[in-house]
């Protein structure tokens, strides 16, 4: 069953689509940010998966091991996680400011408030 062997990639695709759908379909600004986070998380898993070398151990040099997993994607993803946290923080901060300015964080009500004024 080759498809099962790649199950982590299936998880990536499911998370990616679920997150992307949330960003597009939800009108609530906080839910959109959560969706965006899920979307980004799927990419983290994609990177971590690709670092796996068949039969390799954790990349710490020690006797008796000759085959190691690739540590580089993990390091890259640490950076991407920081970026993701910063994006989420900024997005939520904007949502707070929008709530102060409009009194709502529902997209359709915001649009209505802007067209009336």
């Amino acid at each position: 069953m080759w498809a099962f062997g790649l199950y982590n990639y299936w998880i990536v695709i499911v998370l990616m689509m679920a997150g992307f759908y949330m960003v597009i379909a939800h009108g609530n600004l906080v839910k959109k940010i959560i969706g965006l986070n899920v979307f980004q998380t799927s990419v983290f898993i994609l990177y971590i998966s690709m670092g796996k070398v068949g039969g390799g151990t954790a990349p710490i040099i020690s006797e008796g091991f000759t085959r190691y997993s690739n540590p580089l994607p993990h390091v890259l993803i640490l950076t991407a996680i920081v970026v993701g946290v910063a994006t989420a923080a900024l997005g939520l901060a904007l949502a707070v400011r929008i709530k102060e300015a409009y009194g709502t964080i529902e997209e359709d009500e915001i649009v209505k408030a802007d067209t009336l004024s």
Partner: protein
Amino acid sequence: MILANLPALQVVIPLIAAPLCVLIRHRAIVWGFTLLVCWSTLVVAGLLLSQVLTTGPLSYALGDWAAPWGIEYRVDVLNGFLLLIVSSISAIVMPFARESVTKDIPENQIPLFYAAFLLCLTGLLGIVITGDAFNLFVFLEISSLSSYVLISLGKDRRALTAAYQYLIMGSIGATFFVIGVGLLYMMTGTLNMADLGARLPKVLHTRTVLAAFGFLTVGIGLKLAMFPLHLWLPNAYTYAPSVVTVFLAATATKVAVYVFVRFFFTIFGVPFVFETLPVGTILLTLGLAGVLGASTVAIFQTNVKRLLAYSSVAQIGYMLLGIGMASVTGLTAGILHLFNHAIMKGGLFMVMGCVMYQIGSVNIQQLNGIGKRMPWTMAAFVVGGLGLIGVPLTVGFMSKWYLVLGAIEKGYWLVVAGILLGSLLALVYIWRVVEVAYFRPTPQESPSVQEAPLSMLIPTWILIGTTLYFGVETSLTIGTADQAARFLMERSP
């Protein structure tokens, strides 16, 4: 010592200066400090470009880690030129900013504004100078996150929603970009752009690389506001503070266009992008749709900043046309227009900044007879507008001339017709503003409006003046653009 480390200094100077701005907290000192930083990045960029023009591309190993493993900064004619554009725009915007921000941004937030501005500058310079695909993503996010903050500083509450919308679309774009880079890493095991370019040809036929190409194209397309992906741009430009609009309009999308060119020509190579895949046709179609669609929408806008924002989408269409032709002439036109549009649109948004400063609005109804009361400001608008239309003796003419030449060379008559029609549409939307400003009576009851302060007028005229200067004296810009285009076409495997 300093000369050897110029590529690192280009990015490090504004990066270190940004947190210092927050610590200084005194409005006038922070401004002077930021001005100094922007001017020093300009000096560094100038030195780098002159070095590259005399000795050829230079490579800098960050932290002394050798190239394919460590992060490499690589400066060639193309990104040396881009570095000069970005840093000189920042150096011209800063004198303008001092007066302009006093009316746009609450006083206690001004030091924070300068900090975010410098971070944005860091990100943009970093994107341009780096030779590492993942490092590019990091700088992309530095510049994007700080530009969301900058946009949200606008006075109108719609600035907040505009920044939020940009954040969502920008993050999706950046995430697509990382997915693409990850897939490329899967197939090649390298992140260095030159190394990627060398190793990709062996695996180009795989579906993974095809998927990577798709993700990268759409991701970067979101960032550069390629026609159907431009929805974030008009609101962001309209409601952002004047200075921010000037800076972002003149640099951010241009840098994204550069990334596009870099990935197409240096990494994937012309044969794959333009012969195996029909990207040329797609770019030409989207470029034409952008030119005609966005120009038409621009005609019906009542807010002049929004009108210019739609015009920006159209101008990006012209650059895509140049890239889509995949010939030396087309690429020269694209790179040339990148520079020309940066100075024209920067100048035009500065004019709107002056109007905003004096009137507090940029709605077309408020501009009745403004040409008589702010003669210098509106004269700048007319000259910049002529450039957008593409009248001879302005830079706009030069880039359109080369675009038309490139299109004729390839026999794309439809593209030629589209470029000419786009110029006519530009004439219509520029004329709407000119007509209101010069040929409508000045309202009697309105309070007296004076010319904008000199500290804002001079930077405006510097940018507008360069559109005239480079419209006549074209050897520098065309020479550099042509050299960069040849370099890109040759390097393609």
